[in-house]
C-alpha cells in the first residue's frame, strides 16, 4: 500500500507540470493548446539524449528551451498567420513527430543503459534514502509552480492574464496581445517539456508514442484538482493542478493494483470524465431549461383544464 502511494506521489509530481501548463494556456489564456502531446515527447527525447551524452542536468533546461520553441511555433502560426488556435497546435504537434524522431537519432525509442540520470546522481548523495526520487521531483515541480505563480503577478504576467480575459482591454493598455499570447504559450510548453524531461530520465527511456493523450490526461488532472479545491485565485489554480495530478495517479495506481476496471479501459474513462466535466455547465443549463419548460407547460395545461371544468 505504502509503495502504491509513494509511486502515485512520484508520478503525480512528475506529470504535474503538464496540468500546470494547461492551467496557463487553457484556463488563463483561454486557448486549447494541442502542441502538448508532441511537446512532452520532445522534452523527454531531448533530456534522454543529453543524459545519454552524459549531461543529465543540462538536458532538463535544454529540453525546456526546446519545448518553448515548439510553443513559439504554435504561437506564431496563430498570432501572425491567422491559423485557428486549435489547428495551430495540431499542425505543430504533427510536425513534432518527425522532429522527435530526429532528436532520437531516427529510432522510435531510446533507452538509457547504465547511464547517470538526475535521479541516480541525486540518489548517490544519499541524503533522502529511499525517498530520494520523490524529493527531487517535488523540488523541481514546486519550484516551477512557485515561479509560475510569481510570474503571473508581475506586470507581464498581469498582461497575459488580461489577454485571456479581455483582449480589447489589453490593447487599450498599450500591450500587444500577440506578444503576451506568444510568451504564455512558450512558458506553457516549456513546462510540458519539463515534465517530459523528468519522466524520460525517471523511466530511463523515451518512446516516440509516449505522449499520446497526455493533453487529455492533464486536462482531467486540472479538472479534478479544481473540483476538489476550487479555482478562484491564481495560487489556488496552481495548487489545484498539482493536487489533481496526484489524485489522478492515485486513482490510476488503485485501478492498476485492484483491477476494478481493466487498465486498458482507463483512457476511455478519462475521456468520459473530461468530456463530462467540460460539458457540465451546459448540461446544467439545459436541464434547468427543460424543467422550466415542463413547469410552464403543466401550468398552462392546468389552466385549460380549469376552464373546461
Amino acid at each position, binding site marked *: 500500500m505504502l509503495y502504491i502511494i509513494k509511486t502515485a506521489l512520484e508520478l503525480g509530481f512528475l506529470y504535474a507540470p503538464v496540468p500546470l501548463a494547461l492551467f496557463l494556456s487553457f484556463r488563463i489564456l483561454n486557448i486549447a493548446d494541442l502542441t502538448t502531446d508532441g511537446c512532452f515527447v520532445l522534452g523527454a527525447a531531448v533530456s534522454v539524449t543529453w543524459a545519454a551524452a552524459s549531461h543529465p542536468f543540462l538536458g532538463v533546461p535544454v529540453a525546456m528551451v526546446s519545448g518553448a520553441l515548439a510553443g513559439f511555433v504554435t504561437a506564431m502560426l496563430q498570432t501572425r498567420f491567422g491559423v485557428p488556435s486549435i489547428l495551430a497546435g495540431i499542425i505543430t504537434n504533427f510536425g513534432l513527430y518527425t522532429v522527435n524522431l530526429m532528436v532520437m537519432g531516427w529510432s522510435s525509442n531510446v533507452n538509457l543503459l547504465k547511464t547517470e540520470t538526475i535521479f541516480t546522481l541525486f540518489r548517490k548523495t544519499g541524503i533522502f534514502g529511499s525517498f530520494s526520487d520523490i524529493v527531487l521531483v517535488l523540488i523541481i515541480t514546486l519550484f516551477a509552480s512557485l515561479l509560475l505563480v510569481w510570474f503571473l503577478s508581475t*506586470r507581464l504576467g*498581469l498582461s497575459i492574464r488580461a489577454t485571456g*480575459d*479581455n483582449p480589447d*482591454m*489589453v*490593447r*487599450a*493598455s498599450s500591450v*500587444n496581445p500577440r506578444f503576451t499570447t506568444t510568451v504564455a504559450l512558450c512558458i506553457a510548453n516549456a513546462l510540458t517539456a519539463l515534465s517530459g524531461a523528468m519522466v524520460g530520465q525517471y523511466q530511463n527511456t523515451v518512446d516516440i508514442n509516449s505522449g499520446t493523450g497526455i493533453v487529455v490526461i492533464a486536462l482531467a488532472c486540472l479538472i479534478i484538482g479544481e473540483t476538489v479545491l476550487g479555482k478562484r485565485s491564481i495560487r489556488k489554480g496552481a495548487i489545484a493542478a498539482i493536487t489533481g495530478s496526484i489524485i489522478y495517479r492515485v486513482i490510476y495506481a488503485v485501478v492498476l493494483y485492484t483491477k476494478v476496471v481493466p487498465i486498458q479501459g482507463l483512457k476511455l474513462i478519462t475521456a468520459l470524465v473530461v468530456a463530462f466535466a467540460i460539458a457540465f455547465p451546459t448540461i446544467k443549463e439545459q436541464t434547468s431549461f427543460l424543467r422550466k419548460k415542463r413547469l410552464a407547460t403543466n401550468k398552462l395545461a392546468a389552466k385549460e383544464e380549469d376552464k373546461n371544468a
Partner: protein
Amino acid sequence: MLEIKNISKTFSPGTVNEKKALSDLSLSVKDGDFITIIGSNGAGKSTLFNAVAGSFYVDEGYIFLGGQDITFLEEHKRSRIIGRMFQDPLKGTAPSMSIEENIALAYLRSSEGTSPFSRISSRDKKNFREKLSLLGMGLEDRMRDPVGLLSGGQRQALTLLMATIVTPKLLLLDEHTAALDPGTAEKVIELTKKIVSEGNITCLMITHNMKQALTIGNRTLLMNDGNIVLDVSGKERDSLSTSDLIDKFKKKVGEDLDNDRILLST
C-alpha cells in the same frame, strides 16, 4: 493637437455589402478642446474613433497626433497616448482580475523602461487607492475584489479612471454613459467633466443626448454619411438650442435626423 487630413474608409469593398464609412473627412482639434459629436445612425462616429485609435488603418488620408504621424502606428502603440472608452461597460475591464490589477494594467502605459518582471509596488497601490477614492464610489475599499462583481456604473467609472490614470494626449469617449441608468450616467458624466478639466485633456465624446452635446465641452460636431456636416463652437454654439440643431441638420442634409435614441432623449 489632433490633425485628421482627408481620411476615407470603405468596408468590404467590391462586395454587395460595400459601405463607405468615412469619406474624405478632415478635422483639426486644438489642445485642450472638449468636442462632442452627434449624428444619425451609421454616420461614421464610431468609425472615426476606430480610425483614430487604430482598430483599422484608413484607406486614404493621414492622422497626426501631437505632431506625430500615427496613420500607420499599431493600435496598442497608439493606446500609449490615446485613452478610450466604449458604451459597453464590459469592454474596458478584465472581469476575473481584481480592481487593483486592472488599474495596474492601465498604469502600464506610463511604465516605458520599467521591467516587465516588476510587480505592483505598495507605492503604486497607495496611489491607486487615492485615485479610486476620488470616484466617490467606495471602490478604494474593494481593491482586491474581482471587477466582475461591480455594477455597470462602477465598471464604467473604473474604466474612466484607467483611461486617464496616465494622462492621455487624447481621450475618446464613445457613448460611454449610454448603457447606464440615468442617475449613474449623470454621475459618470460629472466625473468625466471633472477629470477632463483637471487634467486639461483633449477629448472627443460621442453622445446621443442633444442637450449634453451642446452644454458639455466647447465645440460640437454633427456627422452624417461619413463626414462632418456641422461644426459649431463659441458664441454660435452657446445660443443654439436643441431644436435649432435639428433644423440646421435638416437644412444641411435635406432629411430628418434619423437617430431614434437622439429623438427620444430630446
